[in-house]
């Protein structure tokens, strides 16, 4: 706890210290970076020590003048588990960011960047350690505002302004719902301190379903579930890349944290909750990956993949809740465990992919897939890092993504084998969605990696791309290595996650020795088979080397059916790669074509272009906001601009409230 408090202070000092010396960018940069990195190291040490000794007292409670409870901070193993990726990614992304923002374009903003960056990291930590509703909401709002200012760093661009606006609106819709959530909890429990809320079970349980829905909307809008996801594809591309990594890797996970925390208070869950979570996961996962598949902007594509991965996490949570509702410990451990591990994994590989995308932007000057190509030769480090992230996010062995998806699959199959029809059905939905997401994610990331890094350059700037500097490369290398390490430590994972799952659900793995064997041995064998796979690749490589020794290896052009002058314009593009999907009926939802047909004998203009608007935004949110606007316009007559009237409004409101209170 002390280490984590120290981490918070160091981060804030570094960030605001940078503001004080903003006239000297070099010092400001080092100060901000130093604060973030030292804070991150201290924080990781603190979080790990909490995980290792979960029974020690890790709290700080000070009375304060704000009503409904005290200034109360604590770290339990759930918080500590979420804190690890927070500190890890904060530190690594800061190292990367220090070089990334050292450009003429960002230089004037370095000091304020570090202030907001460190504030964002600190507020995420505060969200995770706050144990009082008011404190939590303050930290939540700080987190939203700090990230808003980071998203709008390049606020002279129209697209960034639009992104910032959408982000601000959607985050506040979520926060409003959370206000209701905490007010309802507080009035039932009599206090907003989390321990009192947890103790007030019987007062809360009658309202559990309503609270569950409020938590889903409020926290879900931060996590980015469909249809509340519309801010992600806007905000992530607009923000500087290391900030996107931070936002997508960890900030949206506070939504997952919030939902788990809420589930801990709401008492024994029902199958219908599990079904709800799984349906949300299914819709978010499949729509997320479909929308990702049609994007042309690399960071937008990655943002939609965050929606998809949040869907996978929801599927895991759903399986865990299903296990609680039907009293199957395997489901609880594998469902919650898979969801938690995927949260950590996603922070790592999505952080890695966003940093890789930033490196592409830095080196090739564009994120447009159709302008890139062939970057692997010029940016080998970034390429390998991005490839590792891509394999991991597709859930392929032996990297970390496979382990968490395997755990969720395992839990779901267990549910199918042992449950009655009604509670097996959600598990069926979970498995089919996971399978579909897996297949389409592979399609999407072969596209992303293949179009950007392989083939021939599609533009001059791609042909002249350059590799990023060491400060940007090493954080990516570290994250890529972590993907492999977590993948290879699969058998240790249930034991590592056990205190967290026990904290959430009360199910204890160690009290069921048979169960731990049931869970442990598949994961051990997964590792064994993965190692054999690695060995076989090595053997095949050796065999191939042996066969090719002394043989001629000639170089020529790609086979082109005899055509003499192939150009890079003849290559398959990102759009053409996704075209077969567009040709299906779902495609019409995702694609808008603008065609001007050439007319007459001597046609002058003809053009074709297509775009992929988010149909949830276009068909759901736009009409809704139009409706709200229409409604609010009815009250326009109240706004006269005359200050006397406004004072009258205030007075009338105050008197009304007084009368209402005194009645």
């Amino acid at each position, binding site marked *: 706890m002390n280490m984590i408090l120290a981490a918070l202070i160091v981060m804030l000092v570094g960030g605001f210290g940078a503001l004080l010396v903003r006239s000297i960018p070099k010092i400001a940069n080092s100060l901000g970076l130093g604060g973030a990195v030292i804070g991150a190291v201290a924080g990781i040490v603190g979080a790990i020590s909490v995980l290792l000794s979960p029974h020690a007292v890790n709290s700080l409670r000070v009375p304060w003048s704000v009503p409904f409870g005290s200034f109360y901070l604590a770290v339990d193993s759930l918080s500590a588990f979420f804190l690890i990726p927070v500190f890890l990614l904060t530190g690594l992304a800061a190292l990367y960011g220090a070089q990334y923002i050292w450009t003429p374009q960002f230089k004037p903003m370095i000091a304020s960047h570090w202030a907001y960056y460190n504030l964002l990291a600190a507020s995420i930590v505060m969200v995770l350690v706050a144990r009082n509703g008011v404190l939590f909401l303050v930290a939540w709002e700080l987190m939203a505002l700090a990230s808003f200012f980071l998203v709008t760093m390049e606020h002279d661009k129209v697209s960034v302004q639009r992104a910032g606006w959408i982000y601000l609106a959607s985050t506040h819709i979520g926060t409003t719902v959370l206000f209701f959530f905490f007010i309802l909890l507080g009035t039932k429990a009599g206090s907003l301190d989390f321990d009192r809320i947890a103790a007030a079970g019987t007062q809360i349980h009658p309202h559990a379903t309503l609270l569950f829905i409020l938590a889903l909307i409020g926290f879900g809008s931060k996590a980015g579930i469909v249809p509340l996801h519309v801010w992600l594809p806007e905000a992530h591309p607009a923000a500087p890349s290391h900030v996107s990594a931070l936002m997508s890797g960890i900030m949206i996970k506070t939504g997952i944290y919030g939902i788990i925390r809420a589930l801990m208070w709401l008492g024994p869950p029902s199958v219908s909750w599990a079904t709800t979570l799984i349906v949300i996961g299914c819709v978010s996962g499949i729509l997320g990956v479909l929308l990702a598949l049609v994007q042309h902007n690399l960071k937008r594509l990655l943002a939609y993949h965050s929606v998809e991965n949040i869907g996978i996490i929801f599927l895991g949570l759903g399986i865990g809740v299903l296990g609680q509702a039907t009293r199957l410990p395997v489901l609880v451990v594998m469902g919650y465990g898979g969801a938690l591990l995927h949260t950590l994994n996603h922070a790592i590989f999505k952080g890695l992919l966003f940093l890789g995308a930033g490196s592409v932007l830095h080196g090739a000057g564009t994120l447009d897939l159709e302008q890139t*190509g*062939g970057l*692997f*030769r010029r940016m080998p480090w970034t390429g390998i890092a991005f490839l590792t992230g891509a394999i991991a996010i*597709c*859930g*392929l*062995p032996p990297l970390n993504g496979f382990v968490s998806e*395997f755990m969720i*699959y*395992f839990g779901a*199959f*267990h549910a*199918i*084998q042992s449950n009655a029809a009604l509670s*097996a059905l959600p598990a*069926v939905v979970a*498995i*089919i969605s*996971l*399978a*579909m997401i*897996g*297949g*389409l994610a*592979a399609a999407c990331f*072969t*596209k992303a990696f*293949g179009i950007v890094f*392989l*083939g*021939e350059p599609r533009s001059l700037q791609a042909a002249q791309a350059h590799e990023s500097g060491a400060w940007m490369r090493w954080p990516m290398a570290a994250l890529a290595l972590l993907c492999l390490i977590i993948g290879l430590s699969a058998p240790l994972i249930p034991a590592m996650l056990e205190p967290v799952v026990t904290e959430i659900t009360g199910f204890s793995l160690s009290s069921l020795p048979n169960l731990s064997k049931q869970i442990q041995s*598949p994961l051990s064998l*997964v590792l*064994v*088979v993965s190692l*054999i*796979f690695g060995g*076989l*690749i090595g053997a*095949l*490589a050796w065999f*191939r080397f042996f066969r*090719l020794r002394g043989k001629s*290896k*000639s*170089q*020529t*052009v*790609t*086979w*082109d059916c005899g055509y003499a002058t*192939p150009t890079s314009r003849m*290559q*398959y593009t990102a759009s*053409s*790669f*996704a*075209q*077969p999907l567009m040709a299906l009926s779902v495609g019409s939802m995702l694609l808008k074509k603008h065609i001007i047909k050439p007319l007459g004998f001597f046609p002058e203009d003809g053009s074709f272009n297509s775009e992929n608007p988010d149909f949830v935004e276009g068909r759901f949110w736009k009409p809704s906001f139009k409706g709200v606007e229409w409604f609010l316009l009815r009250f326009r007559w109240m706004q006269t601009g005359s200050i006397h009237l406004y004072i009258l409004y205030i007075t009338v409101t105050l008197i009304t409230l007084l009368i209402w209170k005194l009645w």
Partner: protein
Amino acid sequence: MLNLSALLYVLLGLISAPLMLGVINRTKAICGGRTGQPLLQVYYDVVKLLRKDVVYSRTTTWIFRVGPMMALGGLITALLILPCGGAPAAFKFSGDFVLLFALIGIGRFFTILAALDTGSSFEGMGASRDALYSGLTEPVLFAVLITLARITGELSLSSVFANISPLLWSSSAAVLILVAVIIFVLLLTENSRIPVDDPNTHLELTMIHEVMVLDHSGPDFGFILFGSALKMWIFSALLIGAIMPVHTGNALIDGALFLGGMLLTAVTVGLVESTMARLRLLLVPRMLVGATAIAAVCIFLTLK
């Protein structure tokens, strides 16, 4: 746990997988009134390719060279999880089928990347189609697995296949027949056979798999050819395992039954190829969606 006797089946798979392609080709030749290539032609081809020199496109990177190894390595490793002839596989654990298909998946991932690495539009076309179809086959595959897990009450491929008994056939014959149909459709799709893809042509309009490997040569192409034989072997073994009700416990009889089933599968694939035309590309997703619908029916039949 490691099961040594199953390693014999791994060896058998490695040795006789190319023969399945030979049987398919011979069946097609007989149906077409031709003599056809020798039964062992695929072996000759693989050996010849392993001896040859290689030619690389200047566009390609090491991804292109690694792709075939990844695909073959994944498929050979998958043999370790694949139960054959009533015997449990070398490795057997709950949820092993997830790993089996992930191993095939990693090969596909790298094959697609290797195709995109050439920068050719033909290979891009194949890559794009393969990526889409795998997205469509994956849910069907898992729907079949759900059905099998549900009716047998088992979670590892070896135990699932061991529990397919005459008794189970008598109680859920309809489900098992539908499962067989779906696996056969998946077999044709995943192995790029008619009616999904035509393995004989090299024209960009007809193909998925063949067009993706257009630029490979020498040992790399040998790996690919051998890999496609193994893939055929794996999917046929899944088909036989999912429907074979007779488990005598005698390794020789069970083995003979298994090999007979594999032979029959190869002949059936040959007959389908001889009697059907390739579907238009746009109709393939429809076929796969149809298979999804049948799979959904299967699941609902088991959820009673």
